[in-house]
């Protein structure tokens, strides 16, 4: 069977990569992808943990997986809204470079 600690390690790695991506890339699309990656890392953790706490015979517990399903929904709607925001911004300033977005500051 799969060693859970390695699953969590994997999710941690993915999560970190996602964070770094959010912090470093300038393309909003890729930043959004990185956020998705973070969510997926969390999902992976949930699934792995759920495997750790599978509940008892006859009463299996699947909270983790339910959580994952919810998160997937959330992720979908986030992406939808996010891309909508990107679009409306792209219409106005014709760029998706996050570093050009600093009208509002100090």
């Amino acid at each position: 069977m799969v060693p859970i600690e390695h699953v969590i390690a994997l999710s941690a790695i993915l999560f970190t990569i996602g964070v770094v991506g959010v912090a470093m890339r300038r393309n909003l699309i890729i930043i959004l992808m990185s956020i998705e990656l973070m969510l997926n890392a969390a999902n992976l953790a949930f699934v792995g943990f759920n495997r750790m706490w599978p509940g008892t015979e006859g009463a299996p517990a699947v909270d983790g997986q339910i959580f994952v399903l919810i998160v997937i929904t959330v992720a979908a709607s986030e992406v939808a809204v996010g891309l909508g925001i990107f679009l409306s911004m792209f219409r106005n300033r014709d760029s998706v470079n996050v570093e050009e977005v600093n009208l509002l500051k100090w």
Partner: protein
Amino acid sequence: MSAQAVLFYIFGILAIAGAIGMVLNLRNVVASAMSLVVTMVALGAVYVLLEAYLVAAIQIMVYGGAIVVLFLFVVMLLNLATDEFPPGGQKFIKFSIGLAGVVILGQVLSAIIGNPSAFAAPETVPDGFGGYRQVGAALYTDYVLLVEMSSLMLLAAIVGALILAKRKIG
């Protein structure tokens, strides 16, 4: 080492590779979207290995099928092909983030690998664990409220995306 473990490591490495490919991709947004797909699928496979079959299916369908495609649509729509790397402004901050990320990661990993005892999972799972039947039952009994609420959320997302992305309103 069991076959599952081997498969897990393979897919794990695949996922990491995809993720890195997505983040560190120097030129092409489409390419990074693609490598994201790789990660998603690999994760789906890992879910299967973790006996979360329904989740695995939905993962592949929704992410691989829907979300990344949505990304691609937008990318095409705005035809933003390229993005340079390393980024221009705030080099210091960004690299320090990279560093911080690595450090934190190291901490966490050592913490995790440090005591496997915290991750002792039962060899077998109860019957029906992770199956569509089991999960679906839970979803529509215990968690029915959440399902309803997430419908509201999707509604909000649709409305929002519409209001923002529509060419002209009214």
